[in-house]
């Protein structure tokens, strides 16, 4: 008992090593930093336009984060359906790019990428809102002073003024990005309507853990998996604090 679970995890669980871990890392690397940078850039662009339009646009961009990811798979299943009724297949067939419909939801590679697309689509959540209001709250005189001191363009503005001035919001956004990334599960199963999905496509650590905990009732082993997951989350958080944390850290 005890340490045995971790030994099994590292040496014997091929589903974990072959699918759950690499899938989670791929997903986290793209959705985490990718979604985070996208959130910042979109927030920055939104800050450049007048308030009324900005508010409407911000609501639209935030709204996917309000949807339930599993229920929304209804849409994705119709969009990516493997027959010619699927919107994407229909579109590509009409364009003449393809001759026969692509089985998007049967191929593990496309399932993984669809899952990543869906994750990015719904990644502009509360962290995005924090960054937007962070950008809007920077004192405008700082910019003016910097331009007098010889700042040349808007890229310099972003890296020398905007980001350093809103470090606390950047850190909050990073923590939220990490949390929501590692909270994702079940999307691939819902897309393919089978658990586990064909060839474990898009099978994440949380899926693996839930499978052991609530399908096989191997709570000890599932706990070992959750310790591994929490360790990964914790390390990413340390990294975020290193990058954006204040002097105390």
């Amino acid at each position, binding site marked *: 008992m005890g340490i045995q679970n971790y030994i099994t995890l590292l040496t014997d669980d091929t589903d974990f090593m072959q699918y759950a871990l690499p899938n989670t890392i791929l997903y986290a690397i793209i959705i985490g930093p990718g979604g985070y940078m996208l959130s910042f850039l979109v927030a920055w662009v939104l*800050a*450049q336009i007048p308030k009324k339009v900005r508010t409407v646009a911000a609501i639209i961009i935030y709204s996917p984060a309000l*949807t339930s990811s599993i229920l929304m798979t209804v849409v994705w*299943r119709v*969009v990516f359906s493997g027959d010619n009724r699927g919107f994407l297949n*229909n579109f590509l067939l009409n364009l003449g790019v393809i001759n026969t419909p692509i089985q998007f939801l049967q191929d593990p590679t496309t399932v993984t990428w669809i899952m990543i697309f869906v994750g990015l689509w719904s990644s502009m959540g509360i962290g995005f809102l924090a960054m937007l209001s962070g950008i809007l709250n920077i004192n405008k005189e700082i910019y003016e002073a910097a331009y007098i001191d010889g700042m040349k363009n808007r890229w310099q503005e972003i890296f020398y003024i905007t980001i350093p001035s809103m470090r606390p919001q950047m850190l909050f956004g990073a923590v939220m990005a990490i949390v929501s990334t590692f909270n994702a599960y079940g999307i691939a199963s819902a897309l393919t309507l089978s658990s586990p999905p064909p060839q474990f496509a898009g099978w994440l650590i949380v899926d693996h853990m839930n499978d052991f905990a609530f399908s096989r009732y191997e709570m000890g082993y599932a706990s070992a998996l959750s310790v591994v997951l929490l360790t990964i989350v914790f390390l990413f958080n340390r990294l975020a604090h290193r990058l954006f944390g204040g002097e105390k850290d």
Partner: protein
Amino acid sequence: MIDPKNFHRSQIKFYLILLPLLVVMMLPIIFIVSHAFKPLDELYAYPPKFFTTRITLDNFRQLIGVAQQTGVPFSRYLFNSILVSITVIVASILIGSLAAFAFSFLEFKMKKWLFWANQIAIMFVSVAVSVPRFIVMHELGVVNTFFAHIIPLIAMPVGVFLLKQFMDQIPRELFEAAKIDGANKLQIYFKIILPLIKPALATIAILAFQSAWNNVETSQLFIKDESLMTLPYYFQTLTLGTSSIAAQGISAAASLIIFVPNIVLFIILQKNVMNTMAHSGIK
């Protein structure tokens, strides 16, 4: 220029960046809306139609009808969801703001350590602790009761954090003056602090509502009795249960029912949310 007052030609490039993004963000949601109101024959139509020409409530009627067949009326799931959401909102606002009040205004032993623990709790994603949570719920003996929906959600570390950051902006003199006037801590909290932090309370209400209204895990893990389950879980079993095309319309209607209260609440309270987020930074 950050936060311009008016439109200027130099902003056109930003609109050009935003436009395709807005389309991508909106299309799936527009699709859900149009799919939910589509008649059955248009769900089967080839070539697929994005917008429907004949709006019908058939999908919603069927959604309610399917529920009847399980022996539990649709209104029961709805009632459960509303009751759970309201309880979670009220309880998490009360508990969260009291905790934040202590962190912001009071001095006590281990304050720093406890706030650090709250920071750690933010990053401990809820699904990762579902195993210990499952065991705790069983030990508490609340499995298969209403409390099983509520207890896991009332402690909201993000909420405590946001409320504390917001309260830190309130001048300390206000607290000291009230103390000199003879008010006790609870009076200060209810009469002075609560009215000042309304924007943050609205934000927490939204976050609490989202976590309760969209939640499927509590029904999935802690409830056995069908009549105690909530709306999103029931909807999820419909969505995952079948791949038939007829079910797509019903599922779209279900997604819409879950989504609409979220977005309406956010639109009503978005000013408060942005106001709260200005103080959200982790220093």
